[in-house]
């Protein structure tokens, strides 16, 4: 198993760690039993993600993918954020070991979960827009 320099960089200096107290959407995915939990906080203004923060319990890849995912969506429109795929996260990190690809899926789903929460708070049914959130299998 080998981490790219990019992964190690995003692990050592994770971008956007923390919480947003007055977040507009908060999503959490994963479970401690599997060893990974990601919690994502979004600040959204006029359809634009103006800030993103995360807290993560998990391996190096879990931290790095959280960090990268927040970087990739910050300043983007919700539409663009919804288009974020785990592949894009993996690519942006110069790849992930095969056993760690599931972390990028978690990161993708954490973003969607936060957006889902955002719509719910707006009184809008998120399902048609965000789709089903996939919890990792145990």
């Amino acid at each position, binding site marked *: 198993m080998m981490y790219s320099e990019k992964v190690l960089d995003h692990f*050592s200096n994770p971008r956007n760690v923390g919480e947003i107290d007055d977040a507009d959407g908060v999503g959490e995915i994963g479970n*401690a039993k599997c060893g990974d*939990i990601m919690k994502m906080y979004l600040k959204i203004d006029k359809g634009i993600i103006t800030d993103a923060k995360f807290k993560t*319990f*998990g*391996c*190096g890849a879990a*931290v790095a993918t959280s960090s990268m995912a927040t970087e990739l969506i910050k300043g983007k429109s919700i539409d663009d954020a919804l288009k974020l795929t785990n592949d894009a996260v993996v690519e942006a990190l110069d790849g992930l070991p095969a056993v760690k690809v*599931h972390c990028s899926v978690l990161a993708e789903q954490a973003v969607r979960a936060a957006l889902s929460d955002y719509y719910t708070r707006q009184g809008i049914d998120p399902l048609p827009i965000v789709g089903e959130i996939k919890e990792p299998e145990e």
Partner: protein
Amino acid sequence: MEKRFIYADNAATTAVSDEVLSAMLPHFTKAYGNASSIYKLGRDAQADVEKAREKVAVALGADPKEIFFTSCGSESDNWAIKGTAEMMSKKGKKHIVTSVFEHHAVLHTCEYLEKHGFEVTYVPVDEKGLIDSENVRNAIREDTALVTIMYANNEIGTIQPIEEIAKICHEKKVLFHTDAVQAVGHVEIDVKKQGIDMLSLSGHKIHAQKGIGALYVRKGIVLPNLIHGGGQERGKRAGTENVPAIVGLGRAIEIACSNIVEKADIVTPKRNRLIDGILKLPYTRLNGDRDKRLPGNLNISIEGIEGESLLLMLDLNGICASSGSACTSGSLDPSHVLLSIGLKHEVAHGSLRLSIEEDITDEDVDYILEVIPKVVERLREMSPVWEKMMNGEEVK
């Protein structure tokens, strides 16, 4: 606090020591003969191999004829278990007793045999990581071919009642193998006194090269080969002898077993200081019995954080440590050893193993005890699990 480099993962592997390397070096480019060759260059190589065999034998209280060199601890385990299985299945004995927290070299070999008509009983361990020899007794059946129980656990360092277990095996007339890869050089072993029939060891845990190991097989046991071919190792293990590594293993085991007690006297207090220091952190627990453990081993669960990130953070601070066994890193499951002593999955994920040796300084210990709380704090700060714990929420 100045950054240091501290290798605290000697249970994963060790550096080849200068003494061992200098014993090996001539055998690469000068004394490179094939030990089976008839000319002097070959005969000398063979003499050196036999000297190394003698040293391994002395270290274990065995006869040189009972020592067979292999390519690693895993091969030794595979050979002992599959070989015994092959041998005993001819007598209709197709049952093996082992423990739930063996190394994968034993467990996966047993699982392989289960797929090939064997039954395996996995004896449990208690919450301190110890095996009750009575459980072994009760697991033995009429058709038991082998009992294989590790001498010391590689993750939590607990030392098993090997002599007691061996005695029970002999009463029941069952062969007894022990994976002593973690024990050799750290605890005193005497295969004759302890009644051990077969014993696996590996060079790279005691400052010899990776890729060299040995299997002790008590005289009288005719173990079928795992690797067939040339007549090396008295026909029991084919393959041109790895002379440099064998010579190195001989030297390494000689050194490692020359001062076991003294080393333990140096290491144990330092190890204890590390344990006590780390346990000051809230929500931590020591895994494995505090006393019946390898002198250099500590294994502590730190709740709210995940092991791999802890290791990566420690690495950034110059500390090499482990969480679970190195062989299975890359795997997503928490350590089967930690689960076996009753840890919950989420706790097992956050464990730290340090395995130190007598060369660790007091300053190193200070340094580790300074770094760990900082790193733990940082990881806990970013951990949603820790947040939940602090809020009294349930962690699922």
